[in-house]
């Protein structure tokens, strides 16, 4: 169960896994996620289902190494297994032919925006995608995005590739071109979603964002993932993960994401120390 079929590194700190999960591969829809627990002592973390191959019975997960669990996932190799995978969870993206949809992925956010872009394209939309990264080396999934987009715009913060600037600058230039945009889908770090939504709002563009909050069970039972949307508390796991980008309280979300920073750091420190110790023994 949950065996890793293949593993690639897309960039420094970003891992691409194909994992055996036949039922989820068959059932999942764009926008949904899984919760995984790497081993018996692991915590449960949510990850977007980037893609699936029902024939092979596999799902694709893309992971950025930021903490103990994600670094440990990065250490797994083809043939290893993940202890638990539950899904598909969350509401699927509302897909229809809106007309022109701009799909924006910032950093690791390209991974979750990819299945939505693919489904939007499939539904007959004209899909214009913007993907951004800090620099060219960290840019991921460019070829994947090209395949599901009528047009792909790339941007880097340092100008090492594509437009020199943020994804918001790229969106601004599309707006300046006089392009008629029917829907914006933006996924990435919270500030990126916040500023993309602000820009979209200024131009009266409906915007969907997908949120990644702290979760435990993922079925609505614990409420740890709650966010304020339009002044009301919503549970990302069952009410989301997608919400109206103009209604989300991003500052509260940023704050709530920091709930365990000190303990996450502590876990990382121990993890690094163990790694050093183990590498020492290997030699």
């Amino acid at each position, binding site marked *: 169960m949950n065996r890793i079929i293949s593993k690639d590194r897309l960039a420094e700190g970003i891992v691409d896994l194909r994992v055996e999960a036949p*039922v*989820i591969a068959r*059932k999942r829809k764009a926008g949904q996620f899984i919760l995984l*627990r790497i081993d018996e*002592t*692991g*915590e*449960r973390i949510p990850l977007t289902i980037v893609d699936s191959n029902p024939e092979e019975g596999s799902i694709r997960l893309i992971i950025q190494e930021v903490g*103990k*669990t994600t670094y440990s996932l990065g250490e797994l190799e083809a043939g290893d297994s993940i*202890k*638990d*995978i*539950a*899904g*598909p*969870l969350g509401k699927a993206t509302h897909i229809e032919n809106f007309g022109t949809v701009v799909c924006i992925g910032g950093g690791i956010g390209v991974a979750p925006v990819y299945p939505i872009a693919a489904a939007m394209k499939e539904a007959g939309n004209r899909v214009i995608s913007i993907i951004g990264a800090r620099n060219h080396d960290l840019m991921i999934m460019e070829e994947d995005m090209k395949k599901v987009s009528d047009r792909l715009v790339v941007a880097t913060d340092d100008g090492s590739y594509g437009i020199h600037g943020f994804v918001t600058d790229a969106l601004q230039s599309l707006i300046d071109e006089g392009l008629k945009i029917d829907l914006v889908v933006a996924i990435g770090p919270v500030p990126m979603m916040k500023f993309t939504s602000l820009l979209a709002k200024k131009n009266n563009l409906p915007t969907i964002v997908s949120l990644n909050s702290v979760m*435990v*069970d*993922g*079925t*609505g*039972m*614990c*409420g*740890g993932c*709650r*966010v*304020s949307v339009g002044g009301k*508390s919503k*549970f990302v796991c*069952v009410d989301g993960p997608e919400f109206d980008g103009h209604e989300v309280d991003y500052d*509260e979300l940023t*704050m*709530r994401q*920091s*709930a*365990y920073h000190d*303990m*996450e750091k*502590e*876990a990382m420190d*121990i993890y690094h120390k163990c790694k050093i110790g183990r590498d020492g023994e290997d030699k």
Partner: protein
Amino acid sequence: MADEPKKIPDVTKKTVKPKKPKIPRQKMPEQEPLIRAHNFEEVPYGYSIETAMIEASRCIMCKKPKCIHGCPVGIDIPGFIREIRDGNLKKAARIMKQSNALPAICGRVCPQEEQCEIVCVVGIKQEPVAIGRLERFIADWERDQGEIEIPEIAPSTGRKVAIVGAGPAGLTVAGELAKLGHQVTVFEALHKPGGVLMYGIPEFRLPKAIVEAEVDYVRQLGVEFVYNAVIGKYFTLDELMEEEGFHSIFIGSGAGLPYFMNIPGENLIGVYSANEYLTRSNLMKAYDFPNYDTPIIRSKKVAVIGGGNVAMDSARTALRLGADDVYLVYRRSRVEMPARDEEIHHAEEEGIDFRLLTNPIKINGDENGRVKSMTCIKMELGEPDASGRRRPVPIEGSEYEVEVDTVVVAIGNGANPLLPEATPELKTNKWGNILAEDETGLTSMKGIYAGGDIVIGAATVILAMGAGKSASKAMNEYLMSLDV
């Protein structure tokens, strides 16, 4: 004794029946309050064989025992107590298992004082027989012997049953139907079985090894478990019936979305639902961080809101996680508290600071969005409300602030929307609870039954098991009426 000839009373002698010395209800030894408040080990140690036999001898073996009717799953209580009294422990365990697959759990978490023990005839003049403690004793004894007796399983009926949720209701249905020869598969959303027994009730009240052992018993009856399977998402009910070949389904998906108070500051860091707080600590073992990866805030001053068993569990967990001060904030008075007396008593002994007739009105945060205090208002009791309890009314101008870094909200749960959302033909009431017939648990869909918290809202483990028990009877009849 039926074989012995009846003694003919000797009427020539004026006899005075010697008064039997009254044996007091036997106590269970417990960990000292101030020691146990800092560890997660179980609070009571349980009876020794000797104590259990003494306690069992207090039962007067009523001809028409009321206790059996007081038990939602109808255990033959005098039957198993007689065997304990006579030292036939194996037989006692067998009698109990006939009606209850989870006795070590029930012996610990059932509110016996409102079920079997409240109707105990001994209890009229003395304290009732400690039925719960005896149940716990015999279950623990059998487990400690290392060999659990598996009852005879009926030959396979060829009927397949799916159970949604491996909590008390689902486990009961699974065990009952497996014994009758049906092929049972339990789909559990989490990565471990037990439902609330695993994620909700803390280790110090219900050790998880005991839950696992009793689940293992159900497994040995032939029940298969599938984890990480959120029904409604992983499979829909229709798919289970039409594609996966199940003939009937029991839904025991349990408690749903936790209620919050809708007061300002509830999304600050440090505000938890009791479900989250307990799940982190129990299921994910956050109390053993960093050996386990799941974190939980290292609180110093904790306020728990609510007056039920879950509130008591949360407050006592907070102490064990290292809090110096734990307040239990409840808007009514002590007599209205829904928690069991024993739980309230344990919490008080361990030093929980009860703030009764007090209602939170605001949670205040610091510049990093972390809880720093809670503003409360004092309450007084007015006229009775719809629940029959006197309605708490705020006393104007009585607001005060208490310094806390964590707030745990334990005021109940609404229904989980996942399954009804995925199954529009499954009828629910206005609160989202699944509509099911009282006697049978039958829902609005043919062959689909439901019971436990998803039907009645938050209740007790044993009520969920009772619902499972009656549903399993109806399901068996339904299954056997099918041509397979």
